[in-house]
């Protein structure tokens, strides 16, 4: 991905943090996704207004012992995959106002 990348959670999902994994249900297909801790951090921070690079730098690298370039590459892979399933929305501009998010991480 070149340039800034903004990510937002789709309104078509329901999500819940269970243990240390994020469970995501895509409706109405009833497709279930599970994110590991890094994926969960990115998902939770996907507010549509924070660039992915900033999420990686300030959330991922600060919580996990990983270099920025490596973390960014992994994050881009996760985002691309989730966007392909309709779980995340991706844009080169802020996704603002944010969509009506499904309930997350109680």
């Amino acid at each position, binding site marked *: 991905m070149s340039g800034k990348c903004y990510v937002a959670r789709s309104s078509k999902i*329901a999500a819940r943090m269970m*243990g240390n994994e994020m469970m995501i249900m895509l*409706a109405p297909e*009833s497709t279930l996704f599970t994110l590991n801790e890094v994926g969960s951090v990115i998902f939770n921070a996907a507010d549509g207004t924070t660039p992915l690079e900033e999420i990686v730098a300030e959330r991922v690298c600060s919580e996990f012992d990983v270099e920025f370039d490596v973390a960014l590459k992994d994050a881009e892979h996760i985002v691309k995959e989730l966007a392909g399933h309709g779980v995340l929305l991706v844009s080169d501009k802020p996704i603002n106002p944010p969509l009506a998010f499904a309930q997350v991480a109680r």
Partner: protein
Amino acid sequence: MASLSTASAAADVVIEIGGFPIRLSTDDPTFVEMLKERYAGFVTSGTNAQIEFDVALFPPDSMLGNGDVRVERESGQWLMDRGDFRANWNPSAARGIIRQSANPYSINSVLRIVHTLLLAEQGGFLVHASSAVRNGRAFLFAGVSGAGKTTMARLAPPDATLLTDEISYVSRQKDGYYAYGTPFAGDLGRLGENMRAPLAALYLLRKGTENKVEPLGAAEASRALLENILCFARDSEVVRSVFEAACDFVCRVPIRRLTFTPDARVWEMIA
């Protein structure tokens, strides 16, 4: 098209599962007698059915036979279709109509679908699980076909009361979760007892060479539970409700992995 009115119905029967009485009316008394026999124990004489279905019976060759079930919401009504039946239900009017041939299987499927929709509204669900009550508490044994649901029911000690060997009914109420008996029988071919009990635990079944109980993490428990919950509706609201219900359930009810051999001693581990 058959009328929604029950005025011309020659016979009816009220079947109460999970505390929801549903009246089925038709112009064929023989069909109603068959239902009374099949659902014995779940037939009530109540006049206060919460949902009224007219059952319009068609010759068997006029139906298309089994196919994929389709449950969709359209203009405030639920449309249910599987080839061997077509049904619609208007929740706000609490009325509907079922079109099928005079067989017990189609209407059994419609009842399952309707109950999944009713339960989704209140945080409950139907789940592929056998269940039994012992010492006043209900235990569920969930798993896919062949996992051992019926085996666990067969191995139950004499003081256990069978709720079902196939489809368990989980209702969320103010003071917690309750399991209800259902007439949805599996290989055992025996209806459950029409009773309820507070739910003590859910065991995910796995056949093995020894009996052992292991705790499950929340994520693994959620995944396994969701795999076993019945959800027919391709509807965002219902899918979300079921997802939330499963997650809430996992947070409140102990879920364990039960590896077992077909030996009655496995019940010594159930508590």
